[in-house]
């Protein structure tokens, strides 16, 4: 009997006992950032991958189990995850990661949000009154979140405090240098006009000086309709825009349709790490966004 108890404990141990700081993130960019800051001293998993629309996933069983065991949750916020994160938190029964505790971090709280609106009338679509949640497409925002995330990791895992801070310093240096390089390369993109599938790119546009002239969705969250595409063809038929951009999880049919008829190049851009074969980490992700814009554009 005693031997059996020992055996059971030994079998259960790998399931229960883990030394690493366990981080649960909602989007892949924060997973990549956590890896930059925590290296092999953390265990991180993301609720969504780059091929999923992060607004629409469900509070599925595997995610409830992960929330239940997490030490830190990092999500974009601004209602991006409103359909499933509150449900995961309720079912996860984990006081350590409840909002308001050190174990819960909302990335968009640390950046200036754009498109904050007092008007949340849904006839304009599924708008987020707290601002556009896709903050990750401006690399300056990523740096701000990195500072907040490293601080929180250090607070929760004091033994590795110095390790996280060193990594932050190292990351900040490399990232700042990368930003300078990206900004130099993209000066030619300033003022280019963009038709976006969904309003996923306004932070990228603000950063690079691109101008969003329309979206393929008639209103936010409603899939493109034939009549709306028809009106876009009328408006932009005479090359009234420079790019039609979409994320990997959005259907390519509407942008291909419009591109074919207007001659405006349709470009797929990775919205996060993993969104293309090239976007394997935070650095190569932005490299890839910029390469794709530069190579598709008529510059």
């Amino acid at each position, binding site marked *: 009997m005693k031997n059996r*108890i*020992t055996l059971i*404990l030994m079998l259960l*141990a790998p399931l*229960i006992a*883990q*030394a*690493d700081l366990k981080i649960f993130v909602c989007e892949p960019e924060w997973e990549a950032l956590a890896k930059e800051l925590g290296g092999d001293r953390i265990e991180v998993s993301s609720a969504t*991958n780059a*091929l*999923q*629309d992060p607004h629409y*996933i*469900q*509070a*599925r*069983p*595997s995610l*409830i*189990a992960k929330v239940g*065991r997490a030490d830190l949750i990092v999500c974009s*916020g601004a*209602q991006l995850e*409103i*359909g*499933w994160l509150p*449900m995961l938190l*309720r*079912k*996860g*029964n*984990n*006081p350590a990661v409840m909002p308001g505790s050190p174990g819960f971090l*909302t990335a968009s*709280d640390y950046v*200036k949000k*754009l498109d904050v609106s007092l008007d*949340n009338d849904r006839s304009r679509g*599924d708008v987020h*009154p707290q601002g556009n949640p896709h903050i990750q497409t*401006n690399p*300056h*925002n990523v740096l701000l979140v990195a500072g907040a995330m490293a601080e929180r990791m250090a607070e929760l895992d004091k*033994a590795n*405090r*110095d*390790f996280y*801070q*060193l990594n932050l*310093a190292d990351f*900040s240096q490399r990232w700042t240098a990368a930003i*300078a390089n990206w*900004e130099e390369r993209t000066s030619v993109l*300033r*003022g280019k006009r963009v038709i976006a599938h969904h309003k996923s790119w306004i*932070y990228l*546009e*603000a950063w690079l*000086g691109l101008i969003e002239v329309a979206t393929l969705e008639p209103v936010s969250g409603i899939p493109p309709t034939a009549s709306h595409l028809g009106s876009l063809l009328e408006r932009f038929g005479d090359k009234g825009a420079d790019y039609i951009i979409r994320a990997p*999880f959005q259907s390519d049919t509407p942008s291909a349709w419009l591109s074919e008829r207007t001659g405006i190049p349709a470009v797929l851009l990775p919205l996060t790490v993993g969104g293309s074969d090239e976007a394997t980490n935070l650095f190569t992700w932005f490299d890839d966004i910029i390469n794709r814009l530069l190579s598709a554009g008529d510059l």
Partner: protein
Amino acid sequence: MRAPALGVLWVCLMSSAVPALAQTESELDALRAELAQMRADYELRIAQLEKRLDEAEKQAAGDQTVSLQSENQVSTQADLWQPDPYAGQMADTGNRSSNPAIGVIFQGQVWSYGDDPDDYGIPGFPLGGEAGPLPEGLALGETEINISANVDDKFTAWLTVPIGIEDGEAVVEIEEAWIETMTLPAGLSLRMGRFYSNIGYLNDKHSHSWDFTDQPLAYQAFLGDQYLDDGLQMRWLAPTDLYLELGAQVTRGDKYPAGGAAHSGFGSYALHLRTGGDIGFSNSWQAGLSYLQADADERESGNEDDPLVFTGESDLWMAEFVWKWAPNGNNKQRNFIFQAEYLWRNETGSYTLPGSGVLPYDNDQQGWYLQAVYQPFPRWRIGFRYDHLSSDYPGQAFDGTALMPGSSDPRRYSVMADWSNSEFSRLRLQYTLDQAGFDDDNQWGLQYIFSIGAHGAHSF
């Protein structure tokens, strides 16, 4: 004694090995870190200054080249802002655009039957609770008002008030009114108040999230559509990588299949065990087992004006399985759901039948359904459901009563197609061939479901 102690020690060692290694370097690291921190701060500030300069340049350039488009020009000052590290960290995790979050769900339908739904009855399965056919013709469905908010840092509260129409009159009910803990340790949570029991897959789903307009026959016959009651519910989430949830509840026992609040108002209890996971990015599943024991004290069922009265014990076992597929898990574009449940019930006690005496009753009954719903492209879904009931022979004494099953098992075949303009709207067409309450009845219906206010939850 020694062996388990060693086991525990082993567990402790496993969990402390990594920090121990890290500490040997900590003194040197502390110095390095201090330097690094200074450097990082410095760099961040320089970066921001550089940005500000750059932005000013961009702004100037932009003003010249794109002045016509200026109304589309979003602010380019994202990074000038100085973050306040702890500002607003509570934001965005719930429906916080107003406190409390309020949502209203509008439902209505038009339904057509071949036979008169007033004569509906399933031989062998007198219906109780809310079960039964939808009203014939044009009708307003349940208008559901949901109000929820965190009470404080430890409790959260939920209220669902449906306004239904009964005999032409609006009736306000309390469907759910519960308080739940948020900070109990050890993976525990406690819910108190009135709530839908966590048994089965469909039982705690509100009607607006069903994939078909009505509940499967087994839920109608054994749970009065859905079992809800007043009481306490405890849930425990196991600290394992595999999702494993155990739940136990004790309730008053006032609602079908319980009745009469037996045992001084501790009339029923239920247990559930649920597990689930992912297979790759595209597949996820959930499976569960539940048990409900409901004591009935003069429980009424069947015809409302001339009911059957049951006193005894109703034991119900339920097995559930759900499998969901979406390419890369991106369910907005395309997805498929398969769902099946099996219910087995034994009722032991006595029935008082209209116009006759008290008869001892001990009988087993089974019910199951399976359904598949497919979304081929955004907004459109189609679905098929088959549901089935069967009953053992209750004894000769019940010949000619509502408890005697018919010559063939009750069953239905349903197909549906629905269209959702957004997450907040849905229109559905459903056809059912009913071989349960009628003889080969063709039923057609159109239904609408709209929600305003608080954003609904995407539950699995």
